[in-house]
Structures are given as structure tokens and as C-alpha cells.
């Protein structure tokens, strides 16, 4: 088998008529690396997969595997394994034969005897806990089962790269959790690059070595999961990540004696030294977006809490392991995530305290992070 190589996209453009699907896209996935591509629907995730697999051609730019140009090759020659978001199963073939199809397909490079095929098919079916359904026809499968068959058909191949377009989106929470780990460990055994597409920012954080955030056809940020979460490059990235994402408050910076404060519609927040240092170069009264993660504020009944900004409960959502409380503060609705339970109801008066050394700050006009 050929040695594994990195997958690289440079300055790739793709247009559909007047619509720009991808613009100046640069991506680099190392051998054995899982890069998660995340972004809202319509961002260009599927288009990226189609270009790499060869189903469509880019208008400009290069796609390389190692030093080899891929974009001049036919899809068969590229040997990229692509799991379609739409599954694309053959309705006349059983689960087993659907998965074996790429191993038997004419024009393939490797030849497999039937025994090897059976072993490989069984191995991936067991991975997704569907060995007992090998003889079923696709019509008799649920949506989640079809998705797992499509996933198996992608994983069973010896490929130069894996493209997984929303591989686990239609599974229930428990199975998603199991498969995130199982697929990742399976991919680790090969050392080819993998692109894992998902609109779910949390899924991207949990499966990837690095996360690329794609919005409106352009890459906003590529970084390891921790870095993307802790230091989102823009407001758009911050809005996509977190459970729930950070509160993004529009306002302006100001000085109060020697402290830096953030002023918003009807309230203000003292910014700690660590945050102030990040914006030493910008003028006070600069317009900004302040990002406050839901864990960076506390909400307490007004009766028992003398400190903090006066606010009112908007909603309380207890999730079992934590509670999300939304408060109305000035003109804003702000979410707080807490791990203890205080019985609060809509309309209850509360006090809100903001406490963090890691508030996010963005320029209001450009949306880019101030660092």
C-alpha cells in the first residue's frame, strides 16, 4: 500500500452561478489526523467533500495528496473514501453487500477474496453494533441504521483519505457517544487524513485533532479543539461553540477611575486586569462585543444577595446535571449555567454577578477577537 500522505487544499474557489460556495479555501490535514469541519448549514462543508472526492471540480486552486495533484484525477483514481450525508445506499443490495460493494467494484486497485471481504465487512458492522442486521435490505432499516451502513461502507475501504459528511447526526445520544469513540479509534489504526464534517460544534470539539470553522464559504479559524473553544477568532465562531454558546453582548469600553469597564444597555461589567491587558492599545469608548460564557456568571435570589446587577428571571431550564437560567438584565437576555439548584420562577427578582478572567472580547465592527 502506498505510504500515507497529507491532504492539502490551497486557494480553492467554487461557485454555483452567482453564488460563491467556497472562497480561497486553505486546508491541510496531516497523515492520521482527524480534522473536523464545522459550520452552519450552507457553509460549504459538503461542497468541500465533493471537490476532494472528485464529484465536482474546483473553479480555482489546487487539491494535493502529498506532492501529487488530485484535482486532475478521476474519482476512482483518487481512492478517497466518501460517506455521503444522504447515505446513497443501493436499495437492491443487502446491508452486507452494500458495505462490500467498494471492495468488489470493478476498477479497484486491490483485489480481495470473498473470505477477506466477509471479515472486513463483519469487523465494521460490529464496530457500529449492526452485525445482527447484515442480511437486511435498506428499505427495512431506520434512518439511523442506514446512516451506520453508509459509515461502514466508507470505513471498510483502504483509502488515501476519509471524508465523513455528518457521519453520526441521525443516531440517538447514546449511540453517538459510543460511536464518536469507536470511529476515532478505528481511524487511528490507519494513518490517512480524515475530514469529519458536522454542523454540531460540540461534536467537532470532541472528535477532532484540529477543528476548522467554515462560515459562508470561508475559513474563520483552524486550531486544536481547546484553542477554538477558549479563544474563538471571531464572534461567528463563538456563536457556534459551547453548550450553550457564550452570551455575546454589544457595548463599549470605558474607564472608571483606574478600572476598565464594559458598558451595555442598562448595566456595566468590571473587566479584570487580565482582560484589560488585551485591549491596552484600543481607545476607551471603543465599541466591542463581550463574550461571557454561561459558567462565568452567577444568579442568586435578590433577597439573599446584596451584590450584583439587579435582574429578573426569564426562564429556568433544569437539565439534570446542570441548570440553564435565562435572566433579563437591562435590554439583554443572558444565559447562566449552574451546577446547583435554586428554585426560581419567571419574574423572580435576582442579582447577577459576572466573574471571570477569561471573558472574550471582539471588535464590534469587524467581529474579530481583540487579543
Amino acid at each position, binding site marked *: 500500500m502506498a505510504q500515507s500522505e497529507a491532504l492539502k487544499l490551497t486557494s480553492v474557489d467554487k461557485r454555483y452561478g452567482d453564488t460563491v460556495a467556497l472562497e480561497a479555501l486553505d486546508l491541510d490535514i496531516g497523515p492520521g489526523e482527524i480534522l473536523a469541519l464545522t459550520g*452552519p*448549514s450552507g457553509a460549504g462543508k459538503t461542497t468541500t467533500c465533493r471537490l476532494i472526492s472528485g464529484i465536482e471540480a474546483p473553479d480555482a486552486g489546487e487539491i494535493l495528496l502529498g506532492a501529487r495533484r488530485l484535482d486532475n484525477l478521476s474519482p476512482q483514481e483518487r481512492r478517497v473514501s466518501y460517506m455521503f450525508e444522504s447515505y446513497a445506499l443501493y436499495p437492491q443490495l443487502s446491508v452486507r453487500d452494500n458495505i462490500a460493494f467498494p471492495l468488489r467494484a470493478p476498477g479497484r486497485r486491490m483485489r480481495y477474496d470473498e473470505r477477506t471481504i466477509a471479515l472486513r465487512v463483519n469487523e465494521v458492522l*460490529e*464496530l457500529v453494533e449492526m452485525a445482527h442486521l447484515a442480511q437486511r435490505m435498506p428499505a427495512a432499516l*431506520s434512518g439511523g441504521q442506514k446512516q451506520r451502513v453508509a459509515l461502514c461502507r466508507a470505513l471498510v475501504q483502504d483509502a488515501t483519505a476519509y471524508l465523513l459528511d455528518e457521519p453520526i447526526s441521525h443516531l*440517538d*445520544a*447514546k449511540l453517538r*457517544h*459510543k460511536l*464518536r*469513540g*469507536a470511529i*476515532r*479509534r*478505528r481511524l*487511528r*489504526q490507519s494513518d490517512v487524513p480524515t475530514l469529519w464534517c458536522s*454542523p*454540531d460544534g*460540540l461534536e467537532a*470539539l*470532541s*472528535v477532532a485533532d484540529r477543528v476548522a470553522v467554515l462560515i459562508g464559504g470561508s475559513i474563520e479559524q483552524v486550531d486544536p*479543539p*481547546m484553542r477554538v*473553544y477558549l479563544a474563538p477568532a471571531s464572534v461567528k465562531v463563538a456563536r457556534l*461553540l*459551547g*453548550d*450553550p454558546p457564550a452570551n455575546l453582548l454589544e457595548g463599549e469600553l470605558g474607564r472608571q477611575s483606574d478600572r476598565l469597564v464594559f458598558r451595555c444597555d442598562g448595566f456595566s461589567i468590571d473587566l479584570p486586569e487580565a482582560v484589560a491587558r488585551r485591549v491596552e492599545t484600543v481607545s476607551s469608548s471603543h465599541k466591542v462585543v463581550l463574550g461571557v*460564557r454561561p*459558567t462565568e456568571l452567577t444568579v442568586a435570589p435578590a433577597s439573599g444577595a446584596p451584590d450584583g446587577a439587579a435582574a429578573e428571571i*426569564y*426562564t429556568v*431550564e*433544569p*437539565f*439534570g*446535571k446542570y441548570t*440553564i437560567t*435565562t435572566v433579563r438584565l437591562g435590554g439583554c437576555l443572558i444565559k447562566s*449555567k449552574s451546577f446547583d*439548584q435554586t428554585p426560581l*420562577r*419567571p*419574574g423572580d427578582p435576582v442579582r447577577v454577578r459576572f466573574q471571570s478572567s477569561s471573558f472574550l472580547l471582539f471588535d464590534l465592527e469587524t467581529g474579530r477577537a481583540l487579543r
Partner: protein
Amino acid sequence: MATIRLDRVWKRYGLIEAVRDLSLTCDDGEMLALLGPSGCGKTSTLKMVAGIEEVSEGEILFDERPVSQLAPAERNIAMVFEDYALYPHLSVFENIAFPLRIRRLPGADLERRVASAIALLGLESLRDESVRRLSGGAQQRVSIGRALVRDPELILFDEPLSHLDGDQKVQLRAEIKRLQQTAGLTAILVTHDQTEAIAMSDRVAVMNEGVLQQCDAPQQLYDHPQNLFVADFIGEPPMNLIPVTLREADGAIFADGGGWHMALDRDAAGRLRRIATSDCVILGFRPEHVEVIEPSASRQEADTLAGRVAWTEMRGDSHVLTLVPIESETNSPAMSGEEQVTIEVRGVSPPVGEPIAIRVRHDLLNLFNPETGRNLSAVISEGRGPGGPK
């Protein structure tokens, strides 16, 4: 609004029993969720309450008035559907006014009631828009407005958020909950999504194969599931469920299974002594109900689990770690579920391969009978004998 009571309700389709002997109450002003996997009977139940399907046996009562013989139109129920079911050519105002126009409500009255529903749902600026131009979230708000304006005794929400994407779903989820609480609506919510059910409802009825498994407040359901089905169904990542054998030594009780060894504290051990009829139980604990012991502790404490980090997942403000027993292989892709323990920790994650010791919070430890699936701890706290409620 009314109190809704189902009294020993059955639904049969030929030989198939879709709902079996279901007794449930939704109090006046309460939001009750029916939650379960597909085929669990939740939709059949909703249809019987609405009057779209006949009750095979048993009775449904609104404020103790039997309604099972009444046609849907005679029940004063409003429904909110997953696909909104609006009139696409009509405006927001006219969609909401529709049920009142059918009743030939006088103009001023109609105007006032529609306006108040529009205000309650924050639709003022969209009043005269055609509904087909609205986002999915706004369309669903219109359909809730149309339900409210009739002043029904009960509102049925049938998967109201399933056609919305991320952001809108989170927003409308909170809006519906707020509306239900502030307006004191009596509502039944049908959903397959546990997050929705838990976040929106006062109580959740978990169903499986036509049978009610547990009906409780969300926190109770989460901390004290009455059986293995509920334990496994609720929570993400799911509860750890480890089959263990109990062994008594030096006056303490030890649990061994799947390569794990742990001493149970005196409370849990005492409980077990009284209830366990066999040496085999299933130990259940939630991934976040553990404490990671400082790695400096060189010797394993008896009441901890000692393992190795097999892999980690970043989940934003927390990390989910999968642990395997200290002596097992970490890199086989298909590993038996019994060997794995999932924990969720906030803050920094230890690296893969690292030894780790955890202590399970014994106050939130659940013990299940592997044969009946019953939560042995629940049996004790309810003061019932073992063997289950039926």
C-alpha cells in the same frame, strides 16, 4: 384549564398492544412530557387524549369528566404540530384568528383576543406578514398563538421543535416553557428528545413498549431512575452500568466486575445487605457523579476505582474521559461496554494513557437487580419490598 387523568388506558391495534394499562395525571397548570423511543406508545397516547384515536379500554377524564366518547371537536383541546400546519396564504393575524372566525366571534372580541396572543408570543412586528415568509421558529410561534387563542382546556405539543435547527430550537424551547409557566397552561408534550422533555416539563413520563416506566420530576428521573431502562435512556453521556458480583470480606462489601474492583461504603453496603437476594447486581452511576482523586495518592484506596484514561473528548466546559481497568488493553477499537467507565470532569483533562483513580459519589450510586431491572435503592426509599410494582 383542566386536570387531565388517564385511568388504566389501553390501546390495541389488532393483536398489537400499543399502550398497556396506562394511568397518568397531568395537573392543572402542569407541563407533562411523554418521552420514549419510537414505538413506545407516546404518540398513540397523545392521539387518544386528542380524540383522534379511540380508547380500547380504560377512561380519559378532564376534571373528572369522562371524555373518551367525545369527538375531538367536543373536547376543547388545541394541538401544536411539528410541521406547524399553518395556512400559508394567510397573514400571522389571520392564522391566529382562524379558529375564532370559525366560531363567528364578534369583531371587537376577536381583535382583542388575537392581539393578546400576538403580544404574548412577541409577534407584534410580524402581525401582517404572510406566514410563508417567516422562519421556522416564528411559524411555530404563530401555531402556538392559534392554539392559545381558543382558550383550550389542554394544549398538546406534538414534537414542536423537531423541524427547527440548533439556535431556533434552543430559543423556542425556552419561550414555550416561559409561556406555559407564566400563563399557567396545562400541556402535554410528546417528544423523542430527552433534552427537550427534561428542559421544558414539570414532570416526564418515560414510556417503553407501551408501558409507563417512570413518571417524575426531571431531577428525580435523572438522579434516581427506577429501572435500567430509564437509567440507560436518560442522560448524555449515559449512566455507567457495570454488572458486578458482591463479596464480603473484613466486614466490608466489595463489588467486582468488568475488571473493576471497589469497596462500597457502609451505607450502600447496609442497603445491599437488606435487599440483595443475589450476589449479582448492576452498579449504576452518572459520569459526573464522581470525584477524581489526586494522582499523588500512590496506593489505591479501597473505595475508589483505579483505571487508565483510554481516550478523551472535549465538550466545551467539560471533558468526557473513557476509562478502562488499569491492567486492560486501551487501544482495541471494539471494547466491551462493561469494561469502560465514562466520567465527565470540568477543567483540565489528564492525558491519554495516564493512570487515574475516581471515587463514586455514594449518595448518587444506584444499584439494580439484573433480572428485574428494578432499582434496588428506589425500592428501599419507597419502603416497598423487592419485586417491583406490578
